[in-house]
């Protein structure tokens, strides 16, 4: 009975608050109420995953959710995802524009090189561009060497800044995956907000070595990629869940007098399919019909939040 090594019973960060230094503990219902423009109860943040999935992407140590699922060379997986950047996103743009709903595109930077026309159309649609790393084959994680990771951030940022300039303010770590230093590198590269940490329903300040980022709420649980693709649920399971979330958040906003954020984590190769696009439109209709909705981009929401709470 030798048991486990003694250090298994040492708890170096057992104490008040978090066991890291990125943010203090915060209790959502005790945060100061935030007012959205026009007194809206709900800020509607449509975060659209505009991803590039290279066919030769590494599958270790992390298979990015939605990554290649069949042996190389999987034309099946590649083209099914690439469909989103050719067809699906245009269908979603049309559905959103028809309803006056803004989007925020979380873009695999490699697409600025592959499909410059798509970048032009994202800009023309009035969507906010944000960087979701180089591509889905470059997942940031604890095993990536610092020099490599720094080079990835630099290259991805250069690609998108080359097209969008100062409008590029948001970063989303693909697959909600990061190394210990990712937030530092992201802040160093000049980003203002991030959405990798799915731990809240409202923004909060996220500390880095290069200044403070604003963390935006982007659920990985209530996401079409997870529910429709990984979990194999029917389309209405996702749209019903979004509407249930809206009802709950709207009621909280009403009760507390402070705005809430309804985030849609949606993916063109899934939600932009012909058999789903009507459900997407109907879901937007139902959200807008409840009223008191402010459709906004990541930067608009973080700016409004920072002006009051940040």
């Amino acid at each position, binding site marked *: 009975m030798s048991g*486990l090594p003694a250090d298994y019973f040492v708890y170096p960060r057992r104490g008040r608050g978090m*066991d890291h230094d990125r943010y203090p503990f915060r209790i959502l219902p005790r945060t100061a109420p935030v007012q959205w423009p026009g007194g809206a109860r709900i800020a509607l943040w449509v975060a659209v995953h505009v991803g590039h999935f290279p066919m030769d992407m590494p599958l270790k140590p992390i298979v990015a959710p939605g990554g290649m699922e069949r042996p190389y060379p999987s034309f099946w997986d590649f083209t099914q995802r690439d469909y989103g950047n050719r067809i699906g996103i245009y269908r979603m743009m049309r559905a959103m524009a028809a309803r006056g709903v803004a989007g925020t595109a979380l873009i695999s930077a490699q697409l600025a090189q592959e499909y410059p026309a798509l970048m032009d159309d994202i800009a023309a649609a009035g969507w906010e561009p944000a960087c979701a790393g180089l591509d889905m084959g470059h997942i940031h994680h604890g095993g990536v060497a610092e020099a490599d990771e720094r080079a990835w951030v630099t290259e991805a940022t250069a690609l998108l800044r080359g097209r969008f300039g100062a409008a590029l303010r948001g970063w989303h770590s693909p697959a909600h995956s990061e190394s210990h230093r990712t937030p530092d590198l992201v802040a160093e590269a000049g980003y203002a907000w991030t959405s990798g940490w799915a731990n809240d329903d409202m923004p909060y300040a996220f500390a880095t070595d290069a200044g403070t980022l604003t963390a935006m709420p982007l659920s990985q649980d209530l996401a079409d990629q997870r529910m429709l693709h990984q979990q194999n649920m029917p389309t209405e399971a996702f749209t019903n869940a979004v509407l249930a979330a809206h009802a709950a958040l709207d009621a909280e906003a009403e009760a507390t007098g402070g705005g809430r954020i309804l985030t849609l984590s949606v993916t063109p190769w899934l939600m932009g399919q012909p058999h789903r696009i009507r459900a997407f439109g109907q879901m937007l209709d139902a959200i807008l019909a409840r009223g008191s909705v402010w459709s906004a981009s990541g930067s608009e929401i973080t700016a409004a939040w920072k002006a009051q709470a940040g």
Partner: protein
Amino acid sequence: MLKTPGHYAYMPWRRRPRITWPNGARVAFWVAPNIEHYEYDPPPNARRMPWPRPVPDVSGYSWRDYGNRAGFWRMADVMARHGVRGSVSLNVAVCDHYPEIIERCCALDWELFSHGTYNTRYFYGMSEDQQREVIRENRETILRASGQAMDGWLTPAISNDETTQHILAEEGVLYTLDLLHDDQPTPITTRGGQRLVSIPYSLEVNDVPLLVMRNTPPERYAEICKAQFDTLYEEGAESATVMCLPLHPFLIGQPHRIAALEEVLRHVTGHDKVWLATGREIAKHYIDHHLAAHEAWIAEGTP
């Protein structure tokens, strides 16, 4: 290695001595919120890595962090609104990290029992002395934070080792949740003969397997929990049953799922022959009124 846990006698679901609950209730319904902290950078364990991704597993960590920042508070409000107390399966380090959560639990008159120190520190491979030390420390922490006795136990991540139940009994724990073999409390056999009972927990109507592993949409989750209750309520007329509803605030406390919890609690509390109990209350009632009869029946060969 053991072939079976060896902790309970076979007690077939027929002619078992009848169980009754206070006021003629058919079902003891208890809710067990798992209030947990998964560490940002935990040590490895030879039998199980704490995170599937390389540390930091931002995906897994932030998902669970949601439970303490947002989900718990929403869940607690819904439970309070329906007059349902919780019996908290507590990673006791939460008392140190987030005392506000413990204050809220105590204000709601909830029971606290131990779910280990952190959900990232498994019992796999611990020596008996090491297990004993953790159990004792957990008891002290719960007492210090709440004034409560630590009467119940669920090993973190149900990572019990072969001897854990024996040690729990030797340390004076009243009830264990590590076994899923029954819909009623049962005696647990221990090497020293110290008293320990099992009361029903659940991995069937537990939100982790249902929502994460079995891909259940919220409205279907509510249907499953209600069906579980309806059967146990019906059968409870014959001999009283237990239904446990285990919860994890990072899942059930999300905006898109909270209405499903509300629906389940509305259904359960809409029945009159329900005992809204805590784990400790169920264990004590069983020990005081039914344990001897069950043991006698087992001794007679479960005729």
